[in-house]
């Protein structure tokens, strides 16, 4: 393959901060890398680590979970729960040999459009370096 590897990043953004942050990045005409596919969830605390495994199975090369800054959660404490979960999930994936660079988390508030751009660019660059995720990608159907 002569083409450069373009990673697929699935981003779970919380409705109240990070999604609004991404929106701000867009309305401010900030250019961020198009590799990221955004899924809006109500809170980072709603993101089950199972989503992450499933995304990696279905062809994502990296995952980004983003929520409000600690203390700013719309539901008061959802992001604290999320933080614990993904700390652990990341270690678990590392333990089976999945590069931890594929699991990313960030705090982006509604006013941080610029930060959102930086986060996405950094995640994409990191995942580009580690290459495509092919360890446990689904390949049952070989057409």
């Amino acid at each position, binding site marked *: 393959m002569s083409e450069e590897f373009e990673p697929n990043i699935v981003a779970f953004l919380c409705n109240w901060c990070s999604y609004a942050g991404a929106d701000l990045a867009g309305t401010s005409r900030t250019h961020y890398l198009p590799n990221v596919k955004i899924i809006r969830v109500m809170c980072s605390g709603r993101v089950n*680590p199972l989503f992450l495994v499933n995304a990696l199975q279905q062809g994502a090369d990296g995952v980004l979970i983003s929520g409000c800054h*600690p203390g700013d959660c719309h539901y008061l404490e959802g992001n604290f729960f999320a933080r*614990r979960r993904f*700390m652990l999930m990341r270690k678990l994936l590392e*333990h*089976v*040999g999945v590069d931890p660079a594929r699991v*990313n988390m960030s705090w982006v508030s509604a006013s941080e459009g610029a930060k959102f751009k930086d986060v996405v660019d950094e995640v994409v660059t990191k995942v580009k370096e580690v290459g495509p995720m092919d360890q446990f990608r689904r390949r049952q159907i070989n057409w």
Partner: protein
Amino acid sequence: MVDEKKLQDKARETLSRDDVRRLIGWKRSTYGYEAAPAVLTDASEADQLIFDPTCVQNPASFISLEEKKPVPRGQEPDTRKIAVMVKGCDSRAIVQQLVEKAYNRDDVVVLGIPCIGVIDRRKAEKLFGETGKQVKAKVDKEKVAVDIGGDVKTVDRKDILMDKCLRCRYPNPLVSDFLLGDEVEKWADDDFADVDEFEKMTPEEKWKHWDEQLSKCIRCYSCKSVCPMCYCVECVVTQQKPQWTRRSTDISENAAYHLQRAWHLAGRCIECMECQRVCPVDIPIMELNRKMTREVKEMFDYEPGVDAEAEPLLASYNPQDPEDYIM
């Protein structure tokens, strides 16, 4: 060691109580190095009960395995207690189930048994070969005496005991209504040397290891069935709608299953090692759980199954939790 006569008497007394509907302990199996779990409902059966180093199963698993049929109209549900015999490690399962409010403390009668080690069937088979005979065993501070149908063999206890026993920190039950036998002294400690050893591998080596191991999985789900902490009415991996994990067996779905299981046990696994013991294809499942146990301990200073008043790890938080990788 606990006196068998005393144990049977206590069991008989417990089963005779009006408020106890069944008792879970161990009995001699039809063959081999492992006892069989005994689920008794009648005091007359109590003389089957035994306790020796072949009693490896975790009776706490069987509390939630009981399926209840719908109660016919006009009848009252049976709310009598379940009595359960536990070793030190097994008692942690009860503590953790109480933490999670799986049932109330009043719903169980716990008969605790101090224990200084149980036999690992795989190690025993390597040492003495497979056997179709009934096996009894005795353990003291140095040696394990294994009686294979009358043929007694003595072996150093570190060569035959389960790995969990070699790093046992809770030989005495952490919860019990009655203690059978005298408390024993803690003789081992856990330094997570096995996890350290594993982590010396490069990511490529780790994946190669797991690729080989998880590819073997036949998804019989014995690991989740036997786990005392896997008591969900419907497991997320067998759920059809939404179907998170497909039923087909290949490395993708097998890895997803084992990752989910390890993740769901993070901060809950009490290290009874039942999952690894029952696995028919010898997947080292505990390697995943051990890693989680250590991370939980290091990052959140939390140990499951020790304090019945504790908050469940992932249903609580500390504003000062580590977040070193978060951008």
